[in-house]
Structures are given as C-alpha cells and as structure tokens.
C-alpha cells in the first residue's frame, strides 16, 4: 500500500507541475492562437475572394486583371479597386470619409460586402439580404481585403487626376494620341471584351458596336460632339445609356460598363488620349 501511496502522490505532483507549466506558457500560446485565427480567416477569405470577387475586382484586387469565371477569358474589370490606398490606408480612409462612415474600417468593408452598393453592379452578398454568404464568410472576406494594407501601399503618393469637363481642354494638355498604342490599350483595359475590335471586324459581344462611333456618337446627346460623348461616357458611363446593344436594347442605368476608368486612367491620362485616337482614327 505504501507503494501505491507513493505512486499516487508522485503522479499527482507531476500533474500539478505540468498544469503549472501550461499556465506559464499560456500568454504566448494565446497570442499564437489569436494570430492563427486571423491567419486562417484570411486563408478562407482568399478562397472566397478568388471564387466570388476576383472576376470584377481583379486577381490582385487592383481592378486591372479580370477573367470571365466561365470562359477564363480576359474581360474588363467592373469593380472598384480594393488593393487601393484610399480604401485601406489610415483609420478613417478617404472612401469612408466620402461615404460619411462613422464606424471602423472593418465594419465599413463588411457592411459594403454584406449590403452591396445600390446603383452599381455590386450585389448584396449577405444571406440576411438575399445573398449567398454567411456572416462568418463575410468576416473572412473582409479580413482578406484588409490584409492588402501594407507599408508599401500606404507610403506611396495618392494618384488622382482632375479630368477636364471638355475633351478639347483635356486633349490640349497632352501630346497627340497614338492610335496604335490606343489599340493595344483597348485590349488591356478590357474594352474589347464587350465592344469587340472595331477596325478588325471583331463584332461587339455585349456593349454597343463602336465601328461607326465617329458618326453615331454625335447623334446621342444633344450638344455633344462624338469625341466629347465618348470621352464623357468612358468617365461617367451611367449618364447616358446607348440605345442599341448586340443583345437588344442596352441595360441600365446602372450601365454594364465599369465606372472605374476615371480611377484606372488617373495614373496615366495619356492612355485616354491614345484610346480616343484609336477610336476616331486620328
């Protein structure tokens, strides 16, 4: 019996020592697990982003490289950039201020994903509002988007461009457009995905046909030349919906045409000049 008492006592003391050890390492362990929870949430968010968001916001969140989810072809990005300074940098970011948002950045992003952006092609994603995602999925997605915030992104200058009202004023400020480069840009900006390639006879698939835009453009809005009309429509596609698309009357407003070209071309406004040169054959 004495042996049993000894074994039992030793076992109990060892148990206590192990428990004491686990208490001591607890603060570090909790930190690890808090980081692991966020890390795994970001991983799950990355998968959700790839499957649901990348075809409008781009594979790297910059709204530059978007692929059609069915065919895998390069298409124009419809969404706003997310890997983007005015959305992510600082506690109260530019977009939050523009929306007069009083809550946190996390809440801003979650709420935008959950309820969508009325008047644009961004749908509601939360199952509370008829979308497909549960609250935990929206949280994972928001964590993934927030993870784009980095020193590299936030230390760079904010690039904006003040677009002139009139196309003449705009063109006067830049060298003459290069039509050949404009044709290349017409593809990389994703325009050709919907409008085809006018001078090669590749027909428009979704958007209005642009092969005779120099003539038809002038008839669309009273008081606007064809060039002014195209310039205005690239920057603000919702202001006028063209009457004829390949699949019947064009839908909208909101227009199916992405509204983010004023942002995307801000880094190099010469692109606009080149694309106009391509379309109008100057």
């Amino acid at each position, binding site marked *: 019996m004495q042996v049993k008492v000894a074994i039992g006592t030793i076992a109990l003391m060892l148990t206590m020592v192990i428990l004491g050890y686990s208490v001591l390492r607890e603060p570090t362990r909790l930190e690890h*697990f808090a980081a692991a929870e966020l890390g795994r949430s970001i991983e799950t968010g990355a998968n959700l982003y790839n499957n649901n968001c990348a075809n409008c916001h781009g594979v790297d969140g910059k709204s530059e490289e978007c692929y059609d989810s069915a065919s895998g072809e390069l298409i124009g990005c419809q969404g706003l950039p997310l890997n983007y300074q005015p959305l992510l940098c600082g506690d109260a970011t530019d977009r939050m201020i523009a929306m007069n948002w009083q809550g946190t950045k996390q809440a801003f992003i979650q709420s935008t994903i959950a309820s969508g952006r009325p008047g644009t092609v961004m749908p509601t994603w939360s199952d509370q509002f008829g979308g497909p995602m549960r*609250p935990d999925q929206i949280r994972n997605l928001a964590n993934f988007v927030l993870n784009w915030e980095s020193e590299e992104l936030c230390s760079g200058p904010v690039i904006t461009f003040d677009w002139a009202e009139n196309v003449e004023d705009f063109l006067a400020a830049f060298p003459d457009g290069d039509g050949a480069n404009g044709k290349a840009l017409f593809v990389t900006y994703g325009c050709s995905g919907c409008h085809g390639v006018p001078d090669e006879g590749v027909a428009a698939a979704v958007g209005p046909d642009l092969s005779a835009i120099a003539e038809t453009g002038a008839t669309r809005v009273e008081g606007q030349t064809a060039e002014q009309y195209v310039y205005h429509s690239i920057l603000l596609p919702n202001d006028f919906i063209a009457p004829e698309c390949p699949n019947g009357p064009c839908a909208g407003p909101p227009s199916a045409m992405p509204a983010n070209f004023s942002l995307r071309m801000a880094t190099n406004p010469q692109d606009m000049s080149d694309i106009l040169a391509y379309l109008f054959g100057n």
Partner: protein
Amino acid sequence: MATFFDQVKEMGFKQAFVAKSDEAVERLTAGMNISDIRSALRGDEPRRPNPRLRPHADGFWLHIRPSFYHNEITRVYPTFHLGWLSTFMFVWETITGIFLMIFYTPSPLIAYSNMWNILSNVPLGQLMRNMHRLGAEVMVLVVALHMLRTFVTGSYKKPRQFTWVTGMLLLVLTLMLSFSGYLLPWDQLSYWALTVFLSGAESAPAPPVINQNILLILQGGPSLGAGGLLRWYLLHVLLMPLLLGIFFFVHYYKVVLHGFSLPPGREEIGEDSAKRVPKNERTYFIPDILTSEVMWTALLSLFLVAGALWFWDAPLEHHADPVVTPLHVVAPWYLSWSQGWLKLAPKTLVIGFIPALLVAFIVMPYFEIGKSRRYADRRVGLSIAMLFIAFMMVSNWMGTPRFRVQSSPDMEVATKLLPQEGVSPILGIPPDYLWEGEYLPGQVVDGNPHLTYGLEVFAQQMVRHSCTNYPGTTIGGSVLDDCEENDHRMPDPYATMTITQVQNGLMGIDINISALDPENPDNYLYSLNWPSFRHVDSNYEEECTFINKRC
C-alpha cells in the same frame, strides 16, 4: 459541550487547537480522527471498535461503497479497475465540460467563433478542450473494455443479468454522449458527421411517416440548423448525462447488491460466493481500496493532462458549410464500423440491424444460461466473441476512406498534399521555408529540408496514383508501374507545385496535375488546378507536432 474559548482557558491555545482540529476531521470523515487516518495510511491494525467502518455507516459518500472486498478481486486482474475508471471519466468529462459550457453558446451564428475564442482568448482553454475531447475518447474505450472484461470473465451470468442490461445501456449512452458532443463546434467535421447520422435515421426500416418525424425531431427543422444545434446541445449537456447518472446508480447498486464476482476459477461451478467473504480473505475499503482508487485516478489524470498538452489535439475544421461537402466524410473511430457496413449492405438493412444487434446484446444473459463461468467450459461463447471482435475491427477498417471510396487519382493526390481540412506535409512547412517558385515532385531544394520533404511526399503520392506507357519512367527516382487495361491511375502525368506570394504574409500554393489521354492525345484525361493558401501565422507547423495530426 465546552466552547472553543472554554477549551483555550482550560488547556491553552495549542492543545485546544489540536483537539478542535481532531474533532473537525472526525466530523468531515464521519468517524475517523487524525490519528486514525495516519494509522490507516501506515498500514497499522485498526483499533477496536474499528473506526474505518464508520464512514461507510455514517458518511454519505461511502455509504454505497462496500466496507470490504474479497482479496481475489483487489488486484489488477480480474477487474482491471475499469468500472472505477469509467466512473472517474464521467466525473472528468463533467468538470471539463462545465468549464467549456461557460464559453459556449449553442447557435450556428457564434458557436464556431466561440471555439476559436476558447482557443485564443480563454486561459487554459485549449487544454480544457483537448482534455474534454481526449477524455471522451478514453471514456468510450474504457467503457467498451469494461464490457469486454465482463463478458470474458462471465460476470454477466445469473444473478447479474440485470447489471449487464444497465451496463449495456450505459455503453450506448456513453457513445451517444460522445457523438452528441461531436456536433457542438459547428465545423465541417461536426456538421457532416451528424448529417450522415441523420440520413441513417431517415432510412430506418419503419414507415416513412415515423422516419420523417424522427428526423424532424432530431434535426429541429426541415434542415440541420439552429434548432438542431440547440437540441443536440441539450441532449449533450442535459438529457444524456441525466440518464447516464440515473443508470449509473442502478448499475452500481446492483453491483453492490450481488457483490463483485470472483475470478471464474475461484469458485465451484454454479456457485456464487461473492457475498460470503471469509474474515481472513477480506481487504478493507479503508485504506487499501481507497488508496488504490486514488492512485489509479492520479495516474489517469496524469495521462490525460500530459496527453492533452503534448500528444493529442482536438480537431477543429472550417466553419460548417451545408453547400460544401468534404471529399471524405469519416465517422468517429468508435462508429466507423457502421460506415463500413453501409458500404457492404443496403442502408435500411444496416440501420435495422444495429438496434437488433443491440437488443441481442442486452438480452444475451437471459438466453446464454450455461452455468459455468470457467474459460475452459465456454469455448464456443468466447470463440464467437473473438470472431465478433475481429469482425468489428475489419468493419472499422472498411469504414475508412481507404476502402472503396477513392475519388479520381488527381484529386486524391491534391487533397493529400493540400487537404480541404486539417494539416499535411505541405501545410506543415514552416513559413520561412515556403520559398516562391515552381517545383516538381521529388525535387531536392538545397538548404530547405522542409520543402524537400514535402516534395518527396508529393512524389510518393504521384507514384501511387500513376502508371506509365513507357516502361522505366520515374517520378522523384521511383519507377512507375506499367499501365494495365482499365487502369484507374493517371497515365504519364505531369505535375507541379507553385508557391507565390499573394499578400503580405499570405502565400498561395497551387498544385497542377495533368495527364493526356493516350488514346486521343489532343485531350486531357486529367487536368486539375488545386489552389490553396497558407498564412504565415496560421500555425500549422505547431499542429503537426501532435501525434494525432502528423504531417
């Protein structure tokens, strides 16, 4: 009676304090004072009248315990202390379970984040959860072994048939308790295990109206959701423990009533002498049995605490998702046999057979009425038991995905390396060693043993699931088998693994596998892009250190 102050006046503080402590201890133990306890621990003969019998007569806790046992049953054989250890496991699960209850809400909206809160925000939360989950597995094992022991020593025979009946009910309740706890984390593992269970309940051999209503009651609505989670939570924390507690007392009362059965060879055939223990063959509960029980309790606690800290980690998969079915849905090991049976026979037959088997077990002692408990006289019964155990083990193996449910070979390779749930040799690579680039299976990366190991496993998996039409082709140094007719393996595949940086701290790991159709070389027979992500903080490498999650 003199008050403490009177005593202090009379004999001084020290003397009075000793006397008062002695009195307090005697009251707490219902009859043993300090010197009685010390003499018991020293192993001295008790004084007369024996104070060590008084806690049984006057105390609450010991009044249901016998005051002495037969010498023959106090050793490890024949009981292996499994009954006591089962009882202890129930207490252990209750204590750790109450701790976890404090941090848990049974709602699909937050149950899963509660689990992460327990892991990342509750001091000792992970240890408590691991101890509870490991304890559940150990409890199932201990209770099952207890039943096996009772069968082998023939202790279910007359007059102990009803003890066996209550024991069988306790076994079923233990399994149900363990399984009902399975659902509560609301992760993919829970959700799909319960979904399989419920689809079984739905196909029981009964009229549809009964099956559908049982299903409705069990899942709390037309589909498994908030209602179902609440119901299974209440089953787990309220109904099952209550029933188990009730049957435990019936069971133990019957054990004491009939006495502990002696080893089979110890008594005449047909005789039951458990209740007549000669004076010279008695072992008293205090101190011998009590110290023995405390020792086993301490040893099992040590095993559970150390196991939960270093060796065994409770799984937690992704959030439950009704629209994403995992590649392999696996039952817990103690129910894996039923999954094996489902692969052999129609569902309705299997689901009908299980309760029938259970009833057969319960009523067995009333039909198996051979008088002798000796092993030599029970050759048929013991052989049947051995065959049954072997059958259950094979069934358990058949319940695993290795038997008959392999999916396409490219998916098998991809999910082995980058599984939808849990860890793997690739996910276990420490983040510092996830170097960007494109790699081939079996490639050796200089200065990077972790990545090299991952690619070696990649090669092994590719070899296992591939064949070749050009004899002698190798992957990672191993020669591929030649393709046969109707081969389900990939013919001469090409596979790569690409590691890219996606975001700060987030790596993308893609596996690409393709194989051309030998009959029609313009077509891909297999073409898979399997993307996955790994965050530097996700801590998979630490998860890999537990022996139940090896990478």
